[in-house]
């Protein structure tokens, strides 16, 4: 798919990026991404999933860039170890899911 230069690309589930692009866009190192995969924060698709030796063949949903940038900011601003970082990210994801549900329910409520 080709996009005009100034077109904003939705960071969707079905668009995939390689480890290198995820690293560049998020500011995380390849090693940090591999660690976060081990903690289950990122779930790569494609060949060699689960074996860090084949990390170069991993593909990530473009949505991971958003999580990756959050991870990179949190690590830098709070000096978090990877285990703490993984925990914070999973809590943030839960909050976002709940907030989305609240918005959906609010839309269906009558204003009265």
């Amino acid at each position: 798919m080709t996009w005009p230069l100034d077109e904003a690309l939705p960071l969707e589930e079905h668009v995939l990026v390689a480890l290198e692009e995820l690293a560049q866009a998020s500011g995380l190192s390849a090693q940090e991404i591999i660690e976060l995969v081990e903690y289950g924060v990122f779930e790569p698709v494609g060949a060699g999933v689960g074996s860090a030796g084949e990390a170069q063949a991993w593909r990530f949903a473009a949505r991971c860039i958003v999580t990756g940038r959050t991870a990179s900011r949190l690590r830098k601003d709070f000096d978090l170890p990877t285990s703490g970082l993984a925990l914070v990210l999973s809590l943030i994801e839960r909050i976002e899911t709940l907030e989305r549900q609240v918005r959906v329910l609010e839309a269906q409520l009558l204003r009265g």
Partner: protein
Amino acid sequence: MKYKDYYKTLGVERSADAEAIKKAYRRLARKYHPDVSKEKDAEEKFKEVAEAYEVLKDAEKRKAYDEMGFYQPGQDFRPPPDWERQFQSGGFGHFEDLGDLDLFDLLSGLGGGLRGGRGGAGFRMPGQDYEVTAHLSVEEVARGVEIEVPLSVTELSEDGTLRRTARSVTVRIPKGATDGQRLRVPGKGGRGQGGRDGDLYVNVQLRPHDLFRVSGHDLYLELPVAPWEAALGAEVQIPTLEGRISVKVPAGSRAGQKLRARGKGLPRPGGGEGDLYAVLQIVTPSVLSEREKQLYRELQKASTFDPRAHFE
């Protein structure tokens, strides 16, 4: 140049040691970090806190900052002449005019990665990434829209000094964006020096609409009907994003019942559209004429309907 009081921002004494500065930063970062905070203006506040910490945690930058002298926040000032001699020669370039420079940009050039670099051969710096929030209307995400994003970018100018320049980027938001969606515009952030250009990230937020509420790609509309319309059925006109359409309210409708107008919601990025749901609301006139009252009384007498039968 405008003075910023970094000690005040962190809420510490000028004599505070590194440990106290770190503690103050951690406390404020926890409170205002935009990824975890719901405080108003969290992002702005965190930027100030992070900037203050960036300078005060670094012994060399803190010394350079302290020796500029103390002023009121926001006050226009120039560092004393010996400051320029002491720090600029070791910095990344000489500034002819400190007047329109940002204090942080000046201090960032000291001691850090830019030292010795003058934009010459071998100097590499990737462009900065930017994140902005676009507040869009429901109509705008339905059609797709071009937005102007004003950016204040810090770039290395030709003479090797950092300059903050105002730039505006036009971005096309494709139709079908949803609330909370993130979009990426590659290469539209700060310009890189020998490195890649930065990216621009757009966070889509929907502005509330007067009539429609948005749930994913579906729209919800409150549809007020009169009691007799609900009882007898009616054909009514409802607004959609593309003008009015007519829908049938079935006889014997209840409040809260949803009428679906298929495909009248927001477009989905992959094609197709969400639906528009009209949620029935039965409303009664607040003022009744004598004639209306009389008819209601007759209805009351004639009807055997018991809306509270299930209470028995």
